């Protein structure tokens, strides 16, 4: 099992230390709720020392999958393990894997600190740890107030504090950025980065790619209950394209074809240029030259800054359409 942080990054803790994460492994997870196929044959691995994004639109089956990993939902078939052990058989679950699920999981009539107190008691952890995680998540001053009066962002922080109680090597966070303001999201990014750099395994779900784009090393994309993509972000984006448009689209397409370039309408309305099947990078200069040599006037020419989001949406759309 590899537990070193990715090369070049500073690791705050020695690899293989007490907080080195374990691998999450899901194999063939399948779940139906009545006649609804929520999750079908989902397999993936989440490695230590990285932040893995678990992406997909609402209703893609992310939460159901995470709940199967955490032993809350029983799969119809398939298995999931943390360090080779199913969640329900973990000896010290809170010290192995910490989870923050969508919705806080705290009773509004209890103070934040009391919420942490009972969870700590259930995990056999000292009460002092409650104050530590409150401070760690910026809730030190709010700990003795009732959760019912917390803002959405504070509830997310409390959920994160709960996940951190046992100082686990693995963290599973379901939509942790929901309800956070921009400053909160920036804080969360840094926080997740630090956790991963300490060698922990971090799995974070989101339906908004841009929320996690700057943080994740690896992604698992889920769509319509199936895995649509597993890999790194550049792989998901594919080679960067160029967006181009002209009042005379037909002439532009012909000119691009003559230069050995392919083009297809982009979600934004312009043409997205790529280099046929070779997958090599296309530059804006190249596209401009091809148009100029054919005497086609351009109305738009720009590198495709949106390519990752586009690629994400295309991947999802393809999976939802049932195509391979």
């Amino acid at each position, binding site marked *: 099992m590899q537990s070193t942080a990715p090369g070049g990054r500073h690791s705050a803790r020695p690899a293989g230390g007490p907080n080195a994460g374990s691998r999450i492994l899901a194999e063939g997870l399948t779940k139906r709720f009545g006649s609804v196929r929520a999750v079908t044959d989902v397999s993936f691995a989440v490695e230590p020392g990285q932040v893995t994004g678990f992406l997909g639109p609402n209703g893609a089956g992310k939460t159901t999958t995470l709940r199967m990993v955490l032993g809350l939902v029983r799969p119809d078939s398939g298995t999931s393990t943390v360090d080779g052990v199913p969640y329900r058989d973990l000896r010290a679950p809170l010290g192995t894997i910490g989870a923050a699920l969508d919705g806080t999981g705290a*009773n509004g009539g209890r103070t934040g600190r009391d919420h942490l107190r*009972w969870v700590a008691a*259930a995990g056999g952890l000292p009460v002092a740890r409650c104050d530590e995680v409150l401070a760690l998540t910026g809730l030190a001053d709010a700990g003795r107030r009732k959760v019912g009066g917390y803002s959405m962002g504070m509830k997310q922080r409390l959920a994160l504090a709960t996940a951190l109680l046992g100082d686990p090597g693995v963290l599973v966070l379901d939509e942790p950025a929901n309800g956070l303001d921009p400053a909160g999201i920036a804080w969360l990014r840094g926080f997740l980065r630090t956790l991963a750099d300490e060698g922990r395994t971090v799995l974070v779900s989101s339906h908004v790619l841009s929320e996690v784009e700057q943080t994740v090393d690896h992604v698992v994309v889920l769509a319509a209950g199936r895995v649509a993509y597993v890999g790194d972000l550049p792989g998901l984006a594919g080679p960067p394209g160029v967006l181009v448009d002209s009042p005379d689209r037909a002439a532009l397409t012909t000119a691009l074809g003559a230069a050995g370039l392919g083009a297809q309408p982009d979600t934004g309305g312009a043409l997205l240029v790529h280099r046929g099947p070779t997958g090599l990078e296309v530059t804006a200069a190249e596209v401009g030259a091809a148009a100029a040599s054919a005497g086609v006037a351009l109305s738009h020419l720009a590198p495709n800054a949106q390519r990752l989001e586009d690629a994400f949406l295309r991947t999802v759309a393809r999976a939802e359409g049932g195509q391979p």
Partner: protein
Amino acid sequence: MAAAVRAERVKATTTWVWWGLLAIALALVAMNVGLFAALAPADAGAAELFPLPLVTGVDGQLAVVGGGFQGGYLLAAVLGTLIATSDHRSGTIAPTYLAVPRRGRVAVAKAVVAGGLGLLYGVAVQAASLVVMAVVLTVRGVDLVGVDDLARPLLLGVLGTAVWALIGLAFGLLVRQQVVALVALVLVVFLLDPLAGFVLTGVGEVGGVDLEVIASYLLTNASTAVVEGFTGSELLPWWGGLLVLLAWAGVLGVLGWRTTSRRDVT
């Protein structure tokens, strides 16, 4: 297991529920026992108006404190139901099972805590019943019978209250939706069970089967038997009543456990 129990204890004692319900229980006791002690007949003439055992005797005074027991066990049952269902209502069921993935341990821990708080309710309610009765009877100039005559029913009432907390817990495990569970509980305790007892006792014997015997196994009658309280129909001995209540808690608890142990937490 000890950790799970500690967690459930912290959970049960960090909201207003446990002391709020206890306060309601004590208010019910003051009202029930106070009124009963004030109105219970002290001589044969008054007994014609209120067909109850004379409050000057042991049976009469047991009937009076038994009124407090009824209020206490209802609230103990409500507490048990809330201990079982509030995790589902507030969403704390996910962190509960995340910390203690063996759901059987969670259910047992809840039973330990509900039973313990039930004992506490029982002590408070029975003590309050005795005090309220003593005060009212003293005002009326009626002597309290010897403590020896009241001790056993009072102590058994403490146990009975704890068993009722378990019955309420089992109700909550079985139904899970808090409001539905509470409505069902109150409906059964206040309406269906007493009504069934009334009907069975009224019909008497059918085809050689004495329905009044069956009626004595119902929740209300078994509870009355535990504290040797007063009722119009035939009752089990105190130990029989206690066993019957335990059996109800056990059967409902097993059913509740079966429905809750494999259910998905979504």
